[in-house]
């Protein structure tokens, strides 16, 4: 088991007339931790549900690929769905059942289930095993969800905002547990979130969605430091940024701050410094905000 890859071809999922995912061509390499980033309503959850076979595509297709299973569409295919684990914030749990029954169900459905690991993690998160699911607090319910996600050791595991109900110490516990188990049993992990700064260090690749379309897909480290902000007298800033991809502009009197995308080459940097302009890096969270901003003309 080394993880399943994902390929989508012109994938479209519509709700009535509204496309939630729109002609998406995407590849997720096996064995990596991918971040699926986007604002609310960008199509992250619909994409996640389609990858896990919870939902059929309206157009195009999804393929889940691996040595063991070949290349298959997940919808209504038990070979795939037993190997793909999607944990959503709602938990998709049987509310009236006690926690230990939920564990029993997982162990019968998940070929790589590890009961010992599940027990350890439930202890750490202090989830009472005899309690009925509906009696758990929101935080404990989320914790139960992520425990199921980790202990399933599914070759493709997707956490769709599953940890939103958890407080900061619990989320940190989740990140630590996930990294530790991933280091030991590498597999494909997808973390869908809008909490970019909190999870970015866990990721190897990011996919950024906006309104159902792909904005960018890249190794996360290549996005760090990929933007730059240039600040100084407006005319000089405009002259220097004329040929660059401008993400955002801000003016205060005669001073202008322009955020651009892409590495600045050395001659340009030297020119900026010689002109007395300030050049600063742009953080990942900020870059994400600019790339998915609702403003018109912001690209």
């Amino acid at each position, binding site marked *: 088991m080394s993880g399943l890859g994902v390929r989508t071809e012109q994938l479209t999922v519509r709700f009535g007339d509204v496309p939630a995912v729109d002609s998406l061509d995407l590849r997720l390499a096996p064995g*990596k931790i991918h971040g699926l980033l986007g604002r609310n309503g960008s199509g992250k959850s619909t994409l996640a549900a389609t990858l896990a076979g919870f939902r059929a595509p309206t157009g195009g297709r999804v393929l889940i690929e691996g040595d063991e299973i070949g290349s298959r569409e997940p919808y209504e295919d038990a070979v795939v769905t037993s190997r793909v684990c999607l944990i959503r914030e709602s938990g998709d749990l049987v509310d009236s059942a006690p926690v230990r029954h939920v564990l029993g169900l997982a162990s019968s459905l998940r070929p790589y289930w590890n009961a010992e690991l599940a027990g350890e993690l439930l202890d750490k998160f202090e989830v009472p095993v005899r309690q009925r699911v509906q009696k758990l607090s929101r935080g404990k319910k989320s914790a139960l969800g992520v425990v199921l996600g980790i202990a399933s050791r599914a070759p493709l595991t997707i956490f769709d905002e599953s940890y939103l109900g958890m407080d900061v110490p619990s989320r940190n516990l989740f990140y*630590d547990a996930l*990294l*530790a188990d991933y*280091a030991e049993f590498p597999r494909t992990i997808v973390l869908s979130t809008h909490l970019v700064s909190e999870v970015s260090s*866990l990721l*190897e690749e990011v996919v950024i969605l906006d309104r159902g379309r792909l904005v960018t897909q890249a190794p996360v*480290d290549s996005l*760090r430091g990929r933007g730059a902000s240039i600040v100084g007298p407006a005319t000089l800033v405009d002259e220097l940024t004329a040929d660059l991809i401008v993400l955002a502009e801000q003016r205060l009197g005669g001073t202008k701050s322009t955020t651009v995308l892409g590495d600045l080459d050395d001659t340009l940097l030297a020119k900026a410094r010689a002109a007395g302009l300030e050049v600063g890096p742009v*953080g990942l969270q900020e870059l994400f905000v600019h790339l998915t901003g609702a403003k018109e003309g912001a690209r």
Partner: protein
Amino acid sequence: MFDDRSPIYLQIAEQIKNDIVTGALGADEQVMSTNQYAAFYRINPATAAKGFAQLVDEGVLYKKRGIGMFVSPKARELLRTGRQASFFAEVVDPMIREAEAIGVPLKDVVEHIHSRESGGGAR
């Protein structure tokens, strides 16, 4: 610990270099494994591995197969020479600019440095 404004693998490499320059990591001392490092700093193991690989390429660390990674005997010397080359441009020149901007005579700066030297404690 790590910021989002430059690649984390470069920040990891810088941090380890710093530990070597200050002597916190000695010659032939073993460094953490990439998985230990990833767990400790809560980062992706592939990112940690990339930082370590860069240090091996630069001759700062060396690998012992099946055991782990160690600080090269010459690493400290190598890094100190590199930093000495940029010392005046990156540390002294900005200090001179600041002194001039706020009106501290350079003569006073020089005297201060001399007093430190004769006061002992300097290497």
